């Protein structure tokens, strides 16, 4: 793994379990971190943990990602605080209740807003800055749920799938500026976000997921499944013909 002691890393949604574990991996290598999160108390707890674990500096900013002006400002603040960025890692998201979304336009739109629109609001200024700097890496958490729409989870899946397409285009664009775009697709991870789901053998710990994310970012992978075994699983799921898939109860 390349040394990343001088890495300047922005993490959006840093109090999420996977992001906090990824940040720990960066902290252990002495990185300089800028964290954003919705909740100041949580953010401070995570920041202190990372300082003890070896991060060279940790700055924080409270950010409500649904406010697009705040998104722009957070990117500017991080860029100024660290004198540029090597890695921007966008990790925030919510798992909406599919049944409630089906009964509520407001609920559905709110879920799309957090999981898709707000990410675009961050990626647009980030992409422009990275492109101009001709250096660095943008990493975004999508989901295996974005690989195929399923009746149990398609509002979330649609947002993550849309994000996937956006990132493909962005990767294509920024490739020519020497900037990497990493799409991270976690499967089931044992975190507060998935607390309502029944645990099974496919669940990975947040620690394992965070380390895999750190590795994928440092290796500038294009698309990384987290953990890796979701790649063949999702290959199979995508390979099923639609006339079969629509009959399944997934």
């Amino acid at each position, binding site marked *: 793994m390349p040394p990343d002691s001088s890495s300047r890393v922005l993490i959006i949604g840093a109090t999420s*379990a996977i992001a906090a574990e990824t940040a720990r991996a960066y902290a252990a290598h002495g990185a300089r971190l800028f964290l954003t999160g919705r*909740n100041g*108390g*949580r953010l*401070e*707890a995570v920041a202190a*943990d990372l300082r*003890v674990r070896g991060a060279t500096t940790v700055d924080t900013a409270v950010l409500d990602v649904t406010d697009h002006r705040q998104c722009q400002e957070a990117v500017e603040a991080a860029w100024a605080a660290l004198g540029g960025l090597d890695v921007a890692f966008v990790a925030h998201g919510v798992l909406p209740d599919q049944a409630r979304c089906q009964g509520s336009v407001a609920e559905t739109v709110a879920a799309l807003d957090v999981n898709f629109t707000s990410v675009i609001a961050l990626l647009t200024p980030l992409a422009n800055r990275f492109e101009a700097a001709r250096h660095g890496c943008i990493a975004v958490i999508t989901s295996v749920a974005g690989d195929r729409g399923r009746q149990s989870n398609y509002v979330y899946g649609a947002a993550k799938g849309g994000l996937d397409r956006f990132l493909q285009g962005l990767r294509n664009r920024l490739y020519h500026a020497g900037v990497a775009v990493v799409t991270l697709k976690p499967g089931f991870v044992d975190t*507060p976000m998935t607390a309502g789901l029944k645990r099974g053998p496919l669940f990975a710990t947040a620690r394992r997921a965070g380390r895999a994310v750190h590795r994928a970012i440092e290796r500038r992978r294009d698309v990384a499944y987290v953990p890796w075994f979701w790649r063949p699983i999702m290959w199979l799921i995508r390979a099923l013909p639609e006339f079969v898939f629509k009959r399944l109860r997934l």
Partner: protein
Amino acid sequence: MRPYRSWGRYPDATPSGVLPVVWRSEPPELGRLPGTVLAYACGRSYGDSCLNDGGLLLDVSRLDRLMEFDEDRGVLRCEAGVTLAEILALTVPRGWFLPVVPGTRWVSVGGAIANDIHGKNHHRAGTFGGHVTRLELLRSTGERIVCTPDHELFRATVGGLGLTGLILWAEIRLKRIPGPGIAMERIRFADLQAFFDLATEDQAFEYTVAWVDCLARGRRLGRGIYMRGDHSPLDGPTPSPVRPARLRVPADAPTGLLNRLTLGLFNEAYYRAQFGSRRRAVVPYVPFFFPLDGVDDWTRLYGRRGFLQYQCVVPDAPGGDPIRTIFERISRSGEPASLAVLKRFGDVRSPGLLSFPREGMTLAVDFAFRGSRTLGLLDDLDAVVREAGGAVYPAKDARMSPASFRAFFPGLERFALQRDPKFSSSFWRRVHAS
């Protein structure tokens, strides 16, 4: 959902629910929760002291953040769900070690305090709680109280089995070490008297412990291997304490796999494995302190019925009579007892009102759970311990009687005054029938 069991996998208990506690800035409103509550992190207590049958568990395994580390003074502050493995991973490369470590690194700081754990250096360092300088307790009234060792509430919380409130964070004083190695010596001893002789040299070493073959009888009663060591620099790589074990027992073994025959063969092999009566080596600290962590879920070898660990301490007696009596009872009973661990506790006073360690000989033995035969033997052993003025360790217990508990823990009445009435456990309801 995680399985919320105890380490011995006996008894079974079903909580009414589980509430994760993740952020210390957002403590749960305990007073509004139905029924009783109990903190749960790693589930490494053997019996029922970490279980709350019919009540709520507060899962603090994600309350796992470090807060502050003063690298010059060696003072660490962290949340209650942080494991000792995490602490060692951080501090050992910087030349600091936990003042006390138990036989597994997968215990939480909150659990280490609530059970006032001890280790192979008890004769010098006392218990874990003696090195805690501050802790914050969330009471069911909603109060958050920062306690220091001069508080009665602190003395009740250390060794207090999680019954005085929810520990949110603690501050621990670490100790300097010259490196990640242990310069150790293994000495084979032929009988109990030989062990007592070796134990007289304890003070010259930071860590001492003995493994004893419980199945040996007669002349060979109490034979075993004595280990002692000190911190030391180490050449070569140090295994990371946070890396999970490479081996894992994948499923429950058939009941009865560990019987007199298999354990007898194992004990014989273990006793003979060492060529010559003395061996010296410098080893990494992880395998020295945590040999059983090398195999994940090893307790599955005991099969579905689980096992009981019995750990007692008895005051020194000339000739070690109570310990000898206990070994004789175990050996005569025919119960398959596996690894036994024998150690001399020193005279450092434990800070907790319900702390288990006190000066004398401590013995820990695992028994496959075989119903009334096992329970009957352990009741017999309790009687020996009571007679000798000793105690049985609640963190390992699933069966002691209320009368025994009262006899073993004279600080009980003072403790009960500090207990938070909202907090309870299967253990507490069993031994404190009122």
